[in-house]
């Protein structure tokens, strides 16, 4: 089975802290994605990566950065956390082409105080 894991299920941070969210997939997928999920707003794409060291901005990249040094690992970085970044963060992976769906991690619920 495809497995996408995220480093934390719940995280509480203070305003101004640097926050790292880690995601690992074990299916050798080219693509990896970071979304945030907020009530009534669905899934919004923050960043995605289609290869090691490659990244593309999604719909809401402001306040975030990403890193992909290895194919299986995709990190989301909040350089200076703010309260409006309190949200559920979902990582996903998938193949670059083809009919395959995206495979999701369990999510990290981040609270910024």
């Amino acid at each position, binding site marked *: 089975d495809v497995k996408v894991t995220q480093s934390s299920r719940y995280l509480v941070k203070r305003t101004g802290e640097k926050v790292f969210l880690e995601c690992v997939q074990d299916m050798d997928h080219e*693509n990896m994605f970071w979304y945030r999920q907020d009530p009534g707003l669905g*899934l919004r*794409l923050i960043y995605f990566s289609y290869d090691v060291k490659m990244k593309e901005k999604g719909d809401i990249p402001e306040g975030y950065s990403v890193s992909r040094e290895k194919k299986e690992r995709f990190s989301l970085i909040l350089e200076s956390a703010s309260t409006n970044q309190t949200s559920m963060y*979902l990582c996903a992976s998938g193949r670059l*082409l083809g009919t395959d769906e995206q495979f*999701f991690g369990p999510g990290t619920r981040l609270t910024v105080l």
Partner: protein
Amino acid sequence: AQTVTQSQPEMSVQEAETVTLSCTYDTSESDYYLFWYKQPPSRQMILVIRQEAYKQQNATENRFSVNFQKAAKSFSLKISDSQLGDAAMYFCAYRSPYNTNAGKSTFGDGTTLTVKP
């Protein structure tokens, strides 16, 4: 850019009955993929069913089936014989097959389905 609209933020169904969740999308592409994902409370999002636009036959997976109307750009999900375990948020998603979009999917805002015993 593609858009996906789920017009029903919440739906409810009695156990053992049938419910249909709506999804419409907008695209200028002729070939694409459509998905329904399920996100149970506090659990991982998983695929329910997929449809390839060039296939006229509607996809079916056990109690889950779709009504794909390509001309109308409509992709509804029908759940038959609803079970308590079907309670979840359901997301409709569109994916272009072309490399320029690098495998991204566009998601709707989701429909929360409640199943009443």
